[in-house]
């Protein structure tokens, strides 16, 4: 009568001894790889910083070249407003009053608002 017997050759041997192989490269190689990657990263970072400095220099010089033009325009506007306010003062009060004892230009504290709304 058929019974549940082991296979005819027997079972294969069971592994009972430890099998923990040591893997990996030498630690020095790992450190070297990390060092190389970090050096490359810092090199690229430094390149980027240098390029940013050059771009900042370009931006500053373009602004420097434009400053006299813009300042001259603003000065003309300021002179126009000052002369207009002096003329208005002369017209309304009759004489120009000096607030300070020197001739230096000081931005006036009070501004006369025109009677007609201009804008």
């Amino acid at each position: 009568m058929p019974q549940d017997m082991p296979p005819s050759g027997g079972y294969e041997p069971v592994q009972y001894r430890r099998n923990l192989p040591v893997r990996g490269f030498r630690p020095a190689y790992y450190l070297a790889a990390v060092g190389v990657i970090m050096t490359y990263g810092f090199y690229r970072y430094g390149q980027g910083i240098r390029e940013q400095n050059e771009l900042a220099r370009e931006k500053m010089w373009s602004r420097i070249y434009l400053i006299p033009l813009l300042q001259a325009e603003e000065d003309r506007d300021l002179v126009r407003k000052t002369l207009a306010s002096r003329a208005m003062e002369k017209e309304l009060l009759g004489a120009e009053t000096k607030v300070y004892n020197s001739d230096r230009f000081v931005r006036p504290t009070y501004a006369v608002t025109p009677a007609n709304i201009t804008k």
Partner: protein
Amino acid sequence: MSARQPRFNQHLLIDTTPLPDSIPKVQEVGSSSAPLLSASYFIGARCKAYNDDYMQCKTEANGKGEMDCLREGRKVTRCAGSVLEDVNKSCLEEFRKHWECLDNNNQQLWQCRKWERPLNSCVFEKLNLEKKIPGAPENETPVHLRKRQIFAHSIMTQ
């Protein structure tokens, strides 16, 4: 405190009285920021003497610079206006492309090198004005001549 800001709550009040006739009139440069930025190095190349005169006048005037340096200011405005006029006459298309690109890119010069190169070469040929960055280190190519811009957004605009 003499610099107190006025507070007008309802209306904008601008005194539109023009300059008196004793002061000579000058054609104002009515340009917005992108064309001015685009042409700034050319203005610097042609108008260096006038700019230096104006800044020296302002530093030495000691508070009265606005009234006393009007003459130098007019020279500066006329020179810059002439640069813009010449660039418009000879290199209009390249100039326009470049400043439109700057308008689209937050006025960042490094995004628009593709249009800056033809503009620079056209202006150098026709007007003999070269873009130079003073103070740049001598042993490397200047940043506007480099083939690869590290910070540009896309390779197409380099």
